């Protein structure tokens, strides 16, 4: 066991999967010699050879088209999109092609592809790099969208994603890459897909979130505890499809919910969570559902990130409002 940052845990996880299955291929822009712009693939080419870990020409549509073709030839591709802000370049390959293959070919072909990308904000990238566009893909049938909230989950969820025969979009929040470390077993392990996780138990209110917002929710829960409010923190981990059971069980227990996302409010993943609660746990609710999200503008210029992004104070304020409703 060693304490690793999330980016190191991901590198280790990729290395293990490359060694475990000879069909696993890791590729993208600058992932080879350079080890990726965040160093997520650092050393993997030296260690495993250029056959397994390689640079592509600069074209996101090309990268995921390549992945689909390789999958048809029996490979298990793990392409990287350098920043998820560039996903628009490859929406057809992801949402129009890869995710529909099972459907279009009547289940006669599989697409065991894991598309990795850094996403989210708060690290002062230039325009159009940072964003929370996961909602675009959470709405796409046939795709899993997986988002870890820390190093341990990242490695285990990545292993499950790569081993899955279905396509996965695996999003790594940029602010989590190096912000803290966790104990990571040397040996490979998996964390299940389609399962949310209760990151902190509490009886008064449920805070549902994913990715970096889980960390802000945990901070908020600490602060709320000092004021006598015990918050339960649910980490969705797979944001599409959703683990309804964990969400409903928690809300039934606490009777209150605040739904937290870094993405803009309109049509976000938490809109779906609210719908599930309204459909399946409304009689347990003691107050309206609260939401914490970003304002409905495009992702802001980097100097304005702090005033735009939701944070623990917003969560605390909303949680108190809902508890005291």
């Amino acid at each position, binding site marked *: 066991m060693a304490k690793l940052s999330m980016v190191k845990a991901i590198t280790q996880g990729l290395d293990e999967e490359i060694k475990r299955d000879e069909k696993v291929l890791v590729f993208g*822009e*600058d992932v*080879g*010699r*350079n*080890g990726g*712009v965040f160093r997520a693939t650092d050393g993997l080419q030296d260690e495993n050879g250029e056959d397994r870990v390689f*640079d592509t*020409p*600069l*074209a996101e*549509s*090309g990268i995921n088209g390549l992945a689909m073709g390789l999958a048809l030839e029996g490979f298990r591709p793990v392409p990287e999109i350098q920043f998820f802000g*560039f996903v*628009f*370049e490859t929406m057809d390959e992801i949402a129009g092609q890869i995710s529909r293959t099972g459907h279009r070919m009547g289940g006669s072909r599989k697409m065991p592809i894991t598309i990795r990308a850094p996403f989210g904000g708060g690290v*002062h*990238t*230039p*325009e*159009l*790099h940072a964003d929370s566009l996961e909602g675009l893909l959470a709405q796409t049938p046939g795709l899993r969208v997986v988002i870890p909230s820390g190093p341990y989950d990242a490695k285990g969820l990545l292993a499950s994603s790569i081993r899955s025969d279905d396509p996965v979009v695996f999003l790594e929040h940029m602010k989590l890459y190096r912000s803290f470390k966790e104990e990571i077993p040397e040996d490979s392990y998996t964390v299940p897909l389609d399962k949310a996780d209760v990151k902190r138990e509490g009886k008064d209110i449920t805070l549902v979130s994913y990715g970096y917002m889980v960390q802000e929710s945990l901070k908020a829960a600490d602060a709320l505890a000092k004021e006598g409010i015990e918050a339960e923190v649910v980490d969705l981990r797979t944001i599409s499809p959703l683990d309804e059971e964990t969400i409903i069980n928690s809300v039934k227990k606490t009777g209150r919910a605040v739904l937290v996302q870094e993405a803009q409010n*309109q049509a976000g993943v938490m809109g779906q969570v609210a719908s599930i609660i309204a459909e399946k746990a409304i009689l347990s609710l003691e107050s309206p559902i609260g939401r914490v999200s970003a*304002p*409905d*503008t*495009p992702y*802001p*210029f*980097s*100097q*304005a*990130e702090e*005033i*735009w992004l939701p944070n623990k104070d917003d969560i605390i304020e909303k949680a108190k409002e809902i508890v005291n409703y």
Partner: protein
Amino acid sequence: MKKIDFEQLKSTPNTETLSILDESGQVVNQDLMPDLSDEELTELFKQMVWSRVLNERSTKLNRQGRLGFFAPTSGEEASQIGSNFAMTTDDFILPAYRDVPQLVQHGLPLYQAFLWSRGHVDGNKYPDNFNAVPPQIIIGAQYVQTAGVALGIKKNDKKTVAYTYTGDGGTSQGDFYEGINFAGAFQAPAIFFVQNNGYAISVPREKQTAAPALSQKAVAAGIPGIQVDGMDALAVYTATKAARDWVAAGNGPVLIETLTYRYGPHTLSGDDPKRYRTSAEVDDWQRKDPLIRMRKYLTDKGIWSTDQEKVWEDEVNKQIDEAIKKTESIAPQKVSDFLKNTFIDTPPTIKAEIDAYTAKESD
């Protein structure tokens, strides 16, 4: 090569890189010497020096936390300034993130370029008569848009051109092909620059494509493509000037590949060039430095001196000091303003958000 034959270049890529000044500042191609007065020649060089100083100052300002995003330009002055020098402010520029020098020479106040770097929307507020868009981040997007601006220019019967820049890596994007093909199909007045500095972040040019030259990609679009020594400002200027005349006369678009090099890292956001290139390679390119050869040429001609250069550098530094000061005096951004800019006809949900943020902002 006597005169650049664009009609011929449509079907046959040039096999010899166009150059005029060699590394020692000697004219090797008298036939293609541009028709520039002494004043114009020194102005061209002054802009190159300006760009070099701006690069050095921007790097320092970034390290001090006074500037944000910066993509170094040192080594690319001939390509960037030499091309822009052949344009007029009536022409429309669609730059990429590294093309801030051209954008400022085209008319963007320097303090606004600094605001853009720092991530402030005021850097991107352009007056109506400024023919430009902010530096493009999404690689290739500016190429397709250039076809559109150029078609608009044609429909408006203007005698100007649209011009845009991408890198060697950018030529791999679908948008690159779509842009040059659309401009060709509509015979629109566009000039497409490919600044081939040998790398797309860490990926060497040889890994981008099996094509031996990037300029030859023009042939498939049925438009002329020409490869130019991108360390030679006179060669870049000559090719661009000829292309501009030809394009503005209604002959359709042109693609120009400049062979150049960036001395610095890809950007100042953590790139480490030692991971993918040797210092010997950098030294080789620095021997081809665009400023050295141009300075030598002008000095031999008796129209430039080191004293003059010193005075000019001081003046540039003063301009930069003033610009950064102005940048730092601009009021911080507000979420309510972003919300107001999201729609022209603001819907009720956004109005509610504007009210909520305005209340918070006045706290």
